Protein backbone atom coordinates (compact mmCIF):
# COMPACT_ATOMS: atom_id res chain seq x y z
CA UNK A 1 0.00 0.00 0.00
CA UNK A 2 2.67 2.52 0.97
CA UNK A 3 4.76 1.63 -2.06
CA UNK A 4 1.76 2.20 -4.27
CA UNK A 5 1.03 5.48 -2.56
CA UNK A 6 4.59 6.65 -3.20
CA UNK A 7 4.30 5.62 -6.84
CA UNK A 8 0.97 7.41 -7.11
CA UNK A 9 2.41 10.59 -5.62
CA UNK A 10 5.39 10.48 -7.97
CA UNK A 11 3.13 10.00 -11.00
CA UNK A 12 0.78 12.84 -10.10
CA UNK A 13 3.38 15.39 -8.96
CA UNK A 14 4.41 16.80 -12.38
CA UNK A 15 0.84 17.67 -13.40
CA UNK A 16 0.03 18.92 -9.91
CA UNK A 17 3.09 21.18 -9.89
CA UNK A 18 2.34 22.65 -13.32
CA UNK A 19 -1.25 23.44 -12.32
CA UNK A 20 -0.09 24.92 -9.02
CA UNK A 21 2.54 27.10 -10.71
CA UNK A 22 0.43 28.12 -13.68
CA UNK A 23 -2.93 28.75 -11.99
CA UNK A 24 -3.12 28.76 -8.23
CA UNK A 25 0.04 30.69 -7.34
CA UNK A 26 -0.40 33.49 -9.92
CA UNK A 27 -4.05 34.08 -8.99
CA UNK A 28 -3.23 34.21 -5.28
CA UNK A 29 -0.31 36.57 -5.94
CA UNK A 30 -2.75 39.09 -7.41
CA UNK A 31 -4.40 39.66 -4.04
CA UNK A 32 -1.52 41.77 -2.64
CA UNK A 33 -1.35 43.79 -5.88
CA UNK A 34 -5.02 44.67 -5.61
CA UNK A 35 -4.36 46.18 -2.18
CA UNK A 36 -1.94 48.86 -3.45
CA UNK A 37 -2.65 52.28 -4.87
CA UNK A 38 -1.73 53.56 -8.33
CA UNK A 39 -0.61 57.00 -9.41
CA UNK A 40 -0.48 57.67 -13.18
CA UNK A 41 3.10 58.33 -14.24
CA UNK A 42 4.56 57.09 -10.96
CA UNK A 43 3.15 53.57 -10.94
CA UNK A 44 2.15 51.34 -8.07
CA UNK A 45 2.42 53.00 -4.65
CA UNK A 46 3.94 51.07 -1.71
CA UNK A 47 1.25 51.65 0.96
CA UNK A 48 -1.65 49.26 1.57
CA UNK A 49 -5.19 50.37 0.76
CA UNK A 50 -8.68 49.05 0.10
CA UNK A 51 -9.53 51.87 -2.32
CA UNK A 52 -9.57 49.58 -5.38
CA UNK A 53 -12.36 47.53 -3.81
CA UNK A 54 -14.31 50.45 -2.38
CA UNK A 55 -14.20 52.08 -5.82
CA UNK A 56 -16.07 49.08 -7.23
CA UNK A 57 -18.95 49.85 -4.87
CA UNK A 58 -18.91 53.66 -4.96
CA UNK A 59 -17.85 54.58 -8.50
CA UNK A 60 -20.83 54.82 -10.86
CA UNK A 61 -18.64 53.79 -13.80
CA UNK A 62 -17.88 50.45 -12.13
CA UNK A 63 -21.56 50.08 -11.17
CA UNK A 64 -22.47 50.35 -14.83
CA UNK A 65 -19.81 47.84 -15.92
CA UNK A 66 -20.77 45.31 -13.19
CA UNK A 67 -24.50 45.62 -13.93
CA UNK A 68 -23.88 45.35 -17.66
CA UNK A 69 -21.70 42.24 -17.26
CA UNK A 70 -24.18 40.40 -15.03
CA UNK A 71 -27.18 41.51 -17.11
CA UNK A 72 -25.47 40.35 -20.27
CA UNK A 73 -24.69 36.99 -18.65
CA UNK A 74 -28.34 36.61 -17.64
CA UNK A 75 -29.62 37.61 -21.09
CA UNK A 76 -27.26 35.22 -22.88
CA UNK A 77 -28.25 32.38 -20.52
CA UNK A 78 -31.98 32.93 -21.15
CA UNK A 79 -31.43 33.14 -24.92
CA UNK A 80 -29.36 29.94 -24.87
CA UNK A 81 -32.13 28.15 -22.95
CA UNK A 82 -34.83 29.37 -25.33
CA UNK A 83 -32.86 28.48 -28.47
CA UNK A 84 -31.12 25.44 -27.03
CA UNK A 85 -34.16 23.54 -25.81
CA UNK A 86 -35.99 23.10 -29.15
CA UNK A 87 -32.78 22.11 -30.93
CA UNK A 88 -31.81 19.67 -28.15
CA UNK A 89 -35.34 18.24 -28.12
CA UNK A 90 -35.17 17.48 -31.85
CA UNK A 91 -31.59 16.19 -31.65
CA UNK A 92 -32.41 13.87 -28.74
CA UNK A 93 -35.20 12.28 -30.81
CA UNK A 94 -33.21 11.86 -34.01
CA UNK A 95 -31.69 8.46 -34.69
CA UNK A 96 -28.83 7.07 -36.76
CA UNK A 97 -27.04 9.17 -39.36
CA UNK A 98 -29.28 12.21 -38.87
CA UNK A 99 -28.42 12.31 -35.15
CA UNK A 100 -24.69 11.96 -35.90
CA UNK A 101 -24.73 14.77 -38.48
CA UNK A 102 -26.71 17.21 -36.37
CA UNK A 103 -24.37 16.47 -33.44
CA UNK A 104 -21.36 17.24 -35.64
CA UNK A 105 -22.98 20.47 -36.86
CA UNK A 106 -23.60 21.54 -33.23
CA UNK A 107 -20.10 20.59 -32.05
CA UNK A 108 -18.31 22.12 -35.05
CA UNK A 109 -18.92 25.79 -34.16
CA UNK A 110 -17.81 24.94 -30.62
CA UNK A 111 -14.39 23.89 -31.89
CA UNK A 112 -14.08 26.90 -34.15
CA UNK A 113 -11.88 29.78 -33.07
CA UNK A 114 -13.72 32.50 -31.12
CA UNK A 115 -11.98 35.22 -33.15
CA UNK A 116 -13.25 33.63 -36.38
CA UNK A 117 -16.78 33.31 -35.04
CA UNK A 118 -16.83 36.91 -33.79
CA UNK A 119 -15.50 38.00 -37.17
CA UNK A 120 -18.44 36.21 -38.80
CA UNK A 121 -20.82 38.28 -36.70
CA UNK A 122 -18.93 41.50 -37.42
CA UNK A 123 -19.34 40.92 -41.15
CA UNK A 124 -23.07 40.36 -40.60
CA UNK A 125 -23.87 43.05 -38.03
CA UNK A 126 -21.57 45.98 -38.89
CA UNK A 127 -23.02 49.29 -40.09
CA UNK A 128 -21.88 48.41 -43.60
CA UNK A 129 -22.27 44.70 -42.91
CA UNK A 130 -24.24 42.15 -44.88
CA UNK A 131 -27.55 42.48 -43.01
CA UNK A 132 -27.59 46.29 -43.24
CA UNK A 133 -26.52 46.22 -46.89
CA UNK A 134 -29.30 43.80 -47.77
CA UNK A 135 -31.91 45.81 -45.85
CA UNK A 136 -30.84 49.06 -47.54
CA UNK A 137 -30.72 47.40 -50.95
CA UNK A 138 -34.29 46.12 -50.61
CA UNK A 139 -35.38 49.59 -49.48
CA UNK A 140 -36.52 48.40 -46.07
CA UNK A 141 -34.42 50.95 -44.19
CA UNK A 142 -32.74 54.25 -45.08
CA UNK A 143 -29.95 54.40 -42.54
CA UNK A 144 -28.13 51.31 -41.24
CA UNK A 145 -29.37 49.75 -38.00
CA UNK A 146 -26.87 49.91 -35.15
CA UNK A 147 -26.26 46.29 -34.24
CA UNK A 148 -22.64 46.46 -33.12
CA UNK A 149 -20.74 48.19 -30.31
CA UNK A 150 -23.89 47.83 -28.21
CA UNK A 151 -25.90 45.26 -26.26
CA UNK A 152 -27.37 43.60 -29.39
CA UNK A 153 -24.03 42.75 -30.94
CA UNK A 154 -22.42 41.34 -27.81
CA UNK A 155 -25.54 39.40 -26.84
CA UNK A 156 -25.92 37.80 -30.29
CA UNK A 157 -22.21 36.97 -30.46
CA UNK A 158 -22.05 35.42 -26.98
CA UNK A 159 -25.27 33.44 -27.50
CA UNK A 160 -23.77 32.00 -30.66
CA UNK A 161 -20.55 31.09 -28.85
CA UNK A 162 -22.19 29.32 -25.89
CA UNK A 163 -25.33 27.82 -27.45
CA UNK A 164 -23.59 24.51 -28.35
CA UNK A 165 -22.65 23.96 -24.67
CA UNK A 166 -26.29 24.38 -23.67
CA UNK A 167 -27.53 22.08 -26.46
CA UNK A 168 -25.08 19.32 -25.48
CA UNK A 169 -26.07 19.56 -21.78
CA UNK A 170 -29.78 19.47 -22.64
CA UNK A 171 -29.38 16.55 -25.06
CA UNK A 172 -27.65 14.59 -22.30
CA UNK A 173 -30.51 15.41 -19.90
CA UNK A 174 -33.18 14.48 -22.48
CA UNK A 175 -31.49 11.21 -23.36
CA UNK A 176 -31.26 10.32 -19.65
CA UNK A 177 -35.05 10.67 -19.21
CA UNK A 178 -36.63 7.50 -17.87
CA UNK A 179 -37.85 5.78 -21.01
CA UNK A 180 -41.37 5.22 -19.81
CA UNK A 181 -42.12 8.57 -18.18
CA UNK A 182 -43.46 10.21 -21.33
CA UNK A 183 -45.22 7.06 -22.50
CA UNK A 184 -46.91 6.74 -19.11
CA UNK A 185 -48.15 10.33 -19.29
CA UNK A 186 -49.49 9.72 -22.77
CA UNK A 187 -51.16 6.46 -21.70
CA UNK A 188 -52.85 8.34 -18.85
CA UNK A 189 -54.40 10.67 -21.40
CA UNK A 190 -52.06 13.69 -21.41
CA UNK A 191 -51.59 15.32 -24.79
CA UNK A 192 -48.09 16.05 -26.14
CA UNK A 193 -48.09 19.63 -24.84
CA UNK A 194 -49.26 18.64 -21.36
CA UNK A 195 -46.76 15.76 -21.29
CA UNK A 196 -43.98 18.18 -22.18
CA UNK A 197 -44.78 20.74 -19.49
CA UNK A 198 -45.69 18.28 -16.73
CA UNK A 199 -43.16 15.51 -17.37
CA UNK A 200 -40.34 16.30 -19.79
CA UNK A 201 -39.58 19.86 -18.68
CA UNK A 202 -39.47 19.17 -14.89
CA UNK A 203 -37.41 16.02 -15.39
CA UNK A 204 -34.82 17.89 -17.45
CA UNK A 205 -34.68 20.84 -15.02
CA UNK A 206 -31.34 19.70 -13.50
CA UNK A 207 -29.82 19.67 -17.01
CA UNK A 208 -31.23 23.12 -17.75
CA UNK A 209 -29.78 24.34 -14.46
CA UNK A 210 -26.31 22.88 -15.12
CA UNK A 211 -26.29 24.30 -18.66
CA UNK A 212 -27.39 27.73 -17.41
CA UNK A 213 -24.67 27.88 -14.76
CA UNK A 214 -22.05 26.95 -17.34
CA UNK A 215 -23.24 29.50 -19.91
CA UNK A 216 -23.58 32.28 -17.31
CA UNK A 217 -20.09 31.77 -15.87
CA UNK A 218 -18.52 31.56 -19.34
CA UNK A 219 -20.43 34.64 -20.56
CA UNK A 220 -19.40 36.95 -17.73
CA UNK A 221 -15.72 36.04 -18.21
CA UNK A 222 -15.59 36.09 -22.04
CA UNK A 223 -13.11 38.59 -23.50
CA UNK A 224 -12.80 38.24 -27.29
CA UNK A 225 -16.46 38.55 -28.27
CA UNK A 226 -17.30 41.52 -26.00
CA UNK A 227 -14.14 43.24 -27.21
CA UNK A 228 -14.69 42.70 -30.95
CA UNK A 229 -18.48 43.15 -30.99
CA UNK A 230 -18.67 45.68 -28.16
CA UNK A 231 -15.72 47.73 -29.35
CA UNK A 232 -13.55 49.88 -27.09
CA UNK A 233 -16.54 51.81 -25.69
CA UNK A 234 -19.18 49.22 -24.74
CA UNK A 235 -17.23 47.61 -21.91
CA UNK A 236 -17.75 44.66 -19.58
CA UNK A 237 -15.64 43.51 -16.61
CA UNK A 238 -13.24 41.39 -18.66
CA UNK A 239 -12.56 44.09 -21.27
CA UNK A 240 -11.98 46.67 -18.50
CA UNK A 241 -9.48 44.27 -16.90
CA UNK A 242 -7.81 43.80 -20.30
CA UNK A 243 -7.44 47.57 -20.78
CA UNK A 244 -6.20 48.14 -17.24
CA UNK A 245 -3.45 45.55 -17.64
CA UNK A 246 -2.35 46.15 -21.25
CA UNK A 247 -3.46 49.74 -21.84
CA UNK A 248 -3.54 52.10 -18.88
CA UNK A 249 -1.32 49.85 -16.69
CA UNK A 250 -3.50 50.41 -13.60
CA UNK A 251 -2.65 46.92 -12.37
CA UNK A 252 -3.97 47.32 -8.79
CA UNK A 253 -7.44 48.38 -9.96
CA UNK A 254 -7.43 45.64 -12.61
CA UNK A 255 -6.35 43.04 -10.06
CA UNK A 256 -9.22 44.02 -7.73
CA UNK A 257 -11.74 43.73 -10.58
CA UNK A 258 -10.24 40.39 -11.63
CA UNK A 259 -10.56 39.14 -8.06
CA UNK A 260 -14.20 40.15 -7.88
CA UNK A 261 -14.89 38.39 -11.20
CA UNK A 262 -13.18 35.22 -9.93
CA UNK A 263 -15.13 35.28 -6.67
CA UNK A 264 -18.43 35.70 -8.55
CA UNK A 265 -17.59 32.79 -10.89
CA UNK A 266 -16.39 30.46 -8.11
CA UNK A 267 -19.33 31.34 -5.84
CA UNK A 268 -21.83 30.54 -8.58
CA UNK A 269 -20.12 27.23 -9.34
CA UNK A 270 -19.97 26.33 -5.62
CA UNK A 271 -23.61 27.25 -4.91
CA UNK A 272 -24.70 25.37 -8.05
CA UNK A 273 -22.80 22.32 -6.81
CA UNK A 274 -24.62 22.48 -3.45
CA UNK A 275 -28.01 22.89 -5.12
CA UNK A 276 -27.34 19.95 -7.44
CA UNK A 277 -26.31 17.76 -4.48
CA UNK A 278 -29.52 18.67 -2.59
CA UNK A 279 -31.45 17.90 -5.75
CA UNK A 280 -29.97 14.44 -6.25
CA UNK A 281 -30.34 13.60 -2.53
CA UNK A 282 -33.99 14.66 -2.60
CA UNK A 283 -34.78 12.13 -5.30
Amino acid sequence: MTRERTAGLLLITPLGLVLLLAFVAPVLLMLPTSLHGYVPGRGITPGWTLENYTALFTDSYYHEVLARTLGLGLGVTVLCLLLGYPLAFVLARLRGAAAAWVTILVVFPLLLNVVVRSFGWISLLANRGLINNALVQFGLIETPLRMMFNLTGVMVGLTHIFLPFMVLMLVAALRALPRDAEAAAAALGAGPVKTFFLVTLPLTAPGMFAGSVLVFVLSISALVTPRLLGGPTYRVMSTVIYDQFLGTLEWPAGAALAFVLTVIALLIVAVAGLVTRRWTLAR
Partner: protein
Amino acid sequence: MNEGRIPTVLLLAGAVILLFLLVPVVVVVLAAFSNTEYLAVPPQGFTLRWFAQVLQDETYLASIRFSLVLAVTATALAAVIALPACYALHQRWLPGAETIAGLLMSPLIFPAVVVGVALLQYAAMVGLRGSFPFLVLVHAAIVSPYIVRTVLGSLAGFDPALEDAARVLGTTRAGAFALVVLPSIRPGLIAGLVFAFITSFDEFTVTVFLLPPGQATLPVTMFTAIEQGVDPSVAAVSTLMIVVTGLLLLLSERLSGASRPI
Protein backbone atom coordinates in the same frame (compact mmCIF):
# COMPACT_ATOMS: atom_id res chain seq x y z
CA MET B 1 -36.64 9.54 -24.37
CA ASN B 2 -39.18 7.86 -26.58
CA GLU B 3 -38.75 7.51 -30.26
CA GLY B 4 -41.49 8.74 -32.44
CA ARG B 5 -42.50 11.40 -34.83
CA ILE B 6 -41.15 14.86 -34.21
CA PRO B 7 -43.76 17.61 -34.75
CA THR B 8 -43.06 19.58 -37.93
CA VAL B 9 -43.06 22.90 -36.06
CA LEU B 10 -40.28 21.64 -33.82
CA LEU B 11 -38.27 20.29 -36.73
CA LEU B 12 -38.52 23.70 -38.41
CA ALA B 13 -37.52 25.52 -35.21
CA GLY B 14 -34.58 23.15 -34.77
CA ALA B 15 -33.47 23.75 -38.37
CA VAL B 16 -33.65 27.55 -37.95
CA ILE B 17 -31.61 27.41 -34.72
CA LEU B 18 -29.04 25.15 -36.38
CA LEU B 19 -28.90 27.70 -39.21
CA PHE B 20 -28.20 30.45 -36.65
CA LEU B 21 -25.21 28.39 -35.47
CA LEU B 22 -23.87 27.95 -38.98
CA VAL B 23 -24.62 31.30 -40.69
CA PRO B 24 -21.53 33.20 -39.47
CA VAL B 25 -19.34 30.29 -40.57
CA VAL B 26 -20.89 30.08 -44.04
CA VAL B 27 -20.76 33.86 -44.48
CA VAL B 28 -17.04 33.98 -43.69
CA VAL B 29 -16.24 31.19 -46.15
CA LEU B 30 -18.28 32.80 -48.96
CA ALA B 31 -16.79 36.26 -48.38
CA ALA B 32 -13.26 34.86 -48.73
CA PHE B 33 -13.85 34.20 -52.46
CA SER B 34 -15.36 37.57 -53.32
CA ASN B 35 -13.50 39.63 -55.91
CA THR B 36 -14.18 42.87 -54.04
CA GLU B 37 -12.17 45.01 -51.64
CA TYR B 38 -14.96 44.72 -49.06
CA LEU B 39 -16.89 41.73 -47.67
CA ALA B 40 -19.66 40.65 -50.04
CA VAL B 41 -22.11 37.79 -49.70
CA PRO B 42 -23.10 36.27 -52.04
CA PRO B 43 -19.53 36.77 -53.36
CA GLN B 44 -19.20 39.02 -56.40
CA GLY B 45 -17.00 37.28 -58.92
CA PHE B 46 -14.62 34.55 -57.83
CA THR B 47 -11.02 34.93 -56.80
CA LEU B 48 -8.35 33.13 -54.82
CA ARG B 49 -6.27 36.27 -54.46
CA TRP B 50 -7.14 36.77 -50.77
CA PHE B 51 -5.75 33.32 -50.02
CA ALA B 52 -2.65 34.09 -52.06
CA GLN B 53 -2.25 37.40 -50.24
CA VAL B 54 -2.48 35.73 -46.84
CA LEU B 55 -0.06 32.95 -47.76
CA GLN B 56 2.50 35.56 -48.88
CA ASP B 57 2.04 37.76 -45.85
CA GLU B 58 5.03 37.26 -43.56
CA THR B 59 3.04 38.40 -40.48
CA TYR B 60 0.45 35.68 -40.99
CA LEU B 61 3.01 33.02 -41.90
CA ALA B 62 5.13 33.79 -38.83
CA SER B 63 2.12 33.61 -36.53
CA ILE B 64 0.92 30.33 -38.10
CA ARG B 65 4.39 28.84 -37.46
CA PHE B 66 4.43 30.24 -33.92
CA SER B 67 0.96 28.82 -33.16
CA LEU B 68 1.83 25.40 -34.59
CA VAL B 69 5.04 25.05 -32.59
CA LEU B 70 3.30 26.26 -29.43
CA ALA B 71 0.30 23.92 -29.81
CA VAL B 72 2.37 20.83 -30.66
CA THR B 73 4.86 21.37 -27.81
CA ALA B 74 2.16 22.18 -25.26
CA THR B 75 0.01 19.19 -26.25
CA ALA B 76 3.01 16.84 -26.04
CA LEU B 77 4.04 18.21 -22.65
CA ALA B 78 0.47 17.99 -21.36
CA ALA B 79 0.24 14.34 -22.48
CA VAL B 80 3.55 13.47 -20.84
CA ILE B 81 2.49 14.88 -17.47
CA ALA B 82 -1.20 13.95 -17.63
CA LEU B 83 -0.87 10.27 -18.62
CA PRO B 84 1.03 9.18 -15.46
CA ALA B 85 -1.37 11.14 -13.27
CA CYS B 86 -4.38 9.49 -14.94
CA TYR B 87 -2.83 6.04 -14.50
CA ALA B 88 -2.21 6.64 -10.79
CA LEU B 89 -5.77 7.91 -10.34
CA HIS B 90 -7.21 4.97 -12.24
CA GLN B 91 -5.27 2.47 -10.12
CA ARG B 92 -6.60 4.23 -6.99
CA TRP B 93 -3.07 4.42 -5.62
CA LEU B 94 -3.97 7.64 -3.86
CA PRO B 95 -6.73 8.30 -1.33
CA GLY B 96 -9.46 10.63 -2.57
CA ALA B 97 -8.90 9.90 -6.26
CA GLU B 98 -12.29 11.43 -7.14
CA THR B 99 -11.46 14.70 -5.40
CA ILE B 100 -8.04 14.85 -7.07
CA ALA B 101 -9.59 14.23 -10.48
CA GLY B 102 -11.97 17.12 -9.76
CA LEU B 103 -9.07 19.37 -8.79
CA LEU B 104 -7.21 18.49 -11.99
CA MET B 105 -10.23 19.84 -13.92
CA SER B 106 -10.21 23.09 -11.94
CA PRO B 107 -8.38 25.20 -14.57
CA LEU B 108 -11.67 25.15 -16.47
CA ILE B 109 -13.46 27.09 -13.70
CA PHE B 110 -11.16 30.14 -13.46
CA PRO B 111 -12.15 32.97 -15.80
CA ALA B 112 -9.49 32.91 -18.54
CA VAL B 113 -8.99 36.68 -18.46
CA VAL B 114 -8.16 36.46 -14.75
CA VAL B 115 -5.66 33.68 -15.37
CA GLY B 116 -4.17 35.81 -18.15
CA VAL B 117 -3.58 38.94 -16.10
CA ALA B 118 -2.45 36.89 -13.07
CA LEU B 119 0.15 35.16 -15.22
CA LEU B 120 1.25 38.47 -16.76
CA GLN B 121 1.94 39.86 -13.29
CA TYR B 122 3.57 36.60 -12.14
CA ALA B 123 5.81 36.47 -15.22
CA ALA B 124 6.82 40.09 -14.68
CA MET B 125 7.61 39.29 -11.03
CA VAL B 126 9.86 36.29 -11.69
CA GLY B 127 11.41 37.70 -14.87
CA LEU B 128 9.71 35.34 -17.33
CA ARG B 129 7.72 37.98 -19.21
CA GLY B 130 7.66 37.06 -22.91
CA SER B 131 9.38 33.71 -22.28
CA PHE B 132 8.37 31.04 -24.81
CA PRO B 133 8.99 28.04 -22.49
CA PHE B 134 6.78 29.70 -19.88
CA LEU B 135 4.04 30.10 -22.51
CA VAL B 136 4.35 26.40 -23.38
CA LEU B 137 4.03 25.45 -19.71
CA VAL B 138 0.93 27.62 -19.34
CA HIS B 139 -0.66 26.14 -22.46
CA ALA B 140 0.10 22.62 -21.20
CA ALA B 141 -1.73 23.49 -17.98
CA ILE B 142 -4.67 24.93 -19.92
CA VAL B 143 -5.14 21.89 -22.18
CA SER B 144 -4.35 19.19 -19.60
CA PRO B 145 -7.96 18.89 -18.33
CA TYR B 146 -9.12 17.80 -21.79
CA ILE B 147 -6.54 15.01 -21.88
CA VAL B 148 -7.25 14.00 -18.26
CA ARG B 149 -10.97 13.76 -19.00
CA THR B 150 -10.71 11.62 -22.15
CA VAL B 151 -7.95 9.39 -20.77
CA LEU B 152 -9.74 8.76 -17.45
CA GLY B 153 -12.88 7.98 -19.46
CA SER B 154 -11.02 5.49 -21.66
CA LEU B 155 -9.27 3.88 -18.68
CA ALA B 156 -12.64 3.35 -16.98
CA GLY B 157 -13.70 1.24 -19.97
CA PHE B 158 -10.44 -0.74 -19.95
CA ASP B 159 -10.53 -4.33 -18.69
CA PRO B 160 -7.88 -4.61 -15.90
CA ALA B 161 -7.71 -8.39 -16.48
CA LEU B 162 -5.78 -7.66 -19.69
CA GLU B 163 -3.09 -5.82 -17.76
CA ASP B 164 -2.96 -8.57 -15.13
CA ALA B 165 -2.56 -11.15 -17.90
CA ALA B 166 0.41 -9.24 -19.33
CA ARG B 167 1.96 -9.05 -15.86
CA VAL B 168 1.45 -12.78 -15.27
CA LEU B 169 3.15 -13.44 -18.59
CA GLY B 170 6.23 -11.65 -17.29
CA THR B 171 6.00 -8.04 -18.48
CA THR B 172 7.00 -5.23 -16.14
CA ARG B 173 4.38 -2.72 -15.07
CA ALA B 174 5.84 -0.13 -17.44
CA GLY B 175 5.93 -2.73 -20.22
CA ALA B 176 2.31 -3.68 -19.60
CA PHE B 177 1.37 -0.01 -19.70
CA ALA B 178 3.16 0.61 -23.02
CA LEU B 179 2.13 -2.66 -24.71
CA VAL B 180 -1.37 -3.31 -23.36
CA VAL B 181 -2.92 -0.28 -21.66
CA LEU B 182 -1.78 2.43 -24.07
CA PRO B 183 -2.92 0.67 -27.28
CA SER B 184 -6.36 -0.03 -25.85
CA ILE B 185 -6.99 3.55 -24.74
CA ARG B 186 -5.55 4.92 -27.99
CA PRO B 187 -8.83 6.12 -29.57
CA GLY B 188 -9.76 8.15 -26.50
CA LEU B 189 -6.22 9.43 -26.10
CA ILE B 190 -6.06 10.60 -29.72
CA ALA B 191 -9.42 12.37 -29.42
CA GLY B 192 -8.10 14.08 -26.28
CA LEU B 193 -4.86 15.10 -28.01
CA VAL B 194 -6.70 16.52 -31.02
CA PHE B 195 -8.98 18.50 -28.74
CA ALA B 196 -6.01 19.70 -26.68
CA PHE B 197 -4.19 20.78 -29.86
CA ILE B 198 -7.20 22.72 -31.13
CA THR B 199 -7.66 24.37 -27.72
CA SER B 200 -4.03 25.45 -27.55
CA PHE B 201 -3.98 26.66 -31.17
CA ASP B 202 -7.16 28.70 -30.61
CA GLU B 203 -6.38 30.05 -27.14
CA PHE B 204 -6.51 33.83 -27.06
CA THR B 205 -7.50 35.21 -23.68
CA VAL B 206 -4.50 33.97 -21.66
CA THR B 207 -2.02 34.00 -24.53
CA VAL B 208 -2.46 37.68 -25.43
CA PHE B 209 -0.96 38.70 -22.06
CA LEU B 210 2.11 36.46 -22.33
CA LEU B 211 3.42 36.82 -25.89
CA PRO B 212 7.12 37.43 -26.51
CA PRO B 213 7.65 40.94 -27.92
CA GLY B 214 7.13 41.12 -31.69
CA GLN B 215 5.58 37.66 -31.91
CA ALA B 216 1.96 36.57 -31.97
CA THR B 217 -0.21 33.50 -32.35
CA LEU B 218 -2.58 33.32 -35.31
CA PRO B 219 -5.72 34.22 -33.28
CA VAL B 220 -3.93 37.25 -31.80
CA THR B 221 -2.75 38.40 -35.24
CA MET B 222 -6.28 38.04 -36.59
CA PHE B 223 -7.72 39.89 -33.58
CA THR B 224 -5.35 42.79 -34.21
CA ALA B 225 -6.18 42.79 -37.92
CA ILE B 226 -9.94 42.86 -37.20
CA GLU B 227 -9.55 45.73 -34.73
CA GLN B 228 -7.82 47.71 -37.47
CA GLY B 229 -10.50 47.02 -40.07
CA VAL B 230 -12.27 44.20 -41.79
CA ASP B 231 -11.31 43.00 -45.27
CA PRO B 232 -11.59 39.73 -47.22
CA SER B 233 -8.07 38.61 -46.32
CA VAL B 234 -9.26 38.07 -42.72
CA ALA B 235 -12.09 35.99 -44.21
CA ALA B 236 -9.50 33.96 -46.13
CA VAL B 237 -7.47 33.15 -42.97
CA SER B 238 -10.70 32.35 -41.17
CA THR B 239 -11.70 29.99 -43.98
CA LEU B 240 -8.37 28.19 -43.72
CA MET B 241 -8.94 27.76 -39.98
CA ILE B 242 -12.51 26.56 -40.56
CA VAL B 243 -11.32 23.94 -43.07
CA VAL B 244 -8.50 22.70 -40.83
CA THR B 245 -10.78 22.54 -37.77
CA GLY B 246 -13.35 20.60 -39.80
CA LEU B 247 -10.69 18.12 -40.97
CA LEU B 248 -9.44 17.65 -37.40
CA LEU B 249 -13.00 17.06 -36.17
CA LEU B 250 -13.57 14.41 -38.86
CA LEU B 251 -10.18 12.86 -38.07
CA SER B 252 -10.94 12.54 -34.37
CA GLU B 253 -14.44 11.19 -35.17
CA ARG B 254 -12.82 8.55 -37.37
CA LEU B 255 -10.20 7.63 -34.82
CA SER B 256 -12.42 7.62 -31.78
CA GLY B 257 -15.13 5.65 -33.57
CA ALA B 258 -18.44 6.81 -32.18
CA SER B 259 -19.84 10.29 -32.70
CA ARG B 260 -20.06 11.25 -29.09
CA PRO B 261 -20.31 14.84 -27.96
CA ILE B 262 -17.20 16.14 -26.29
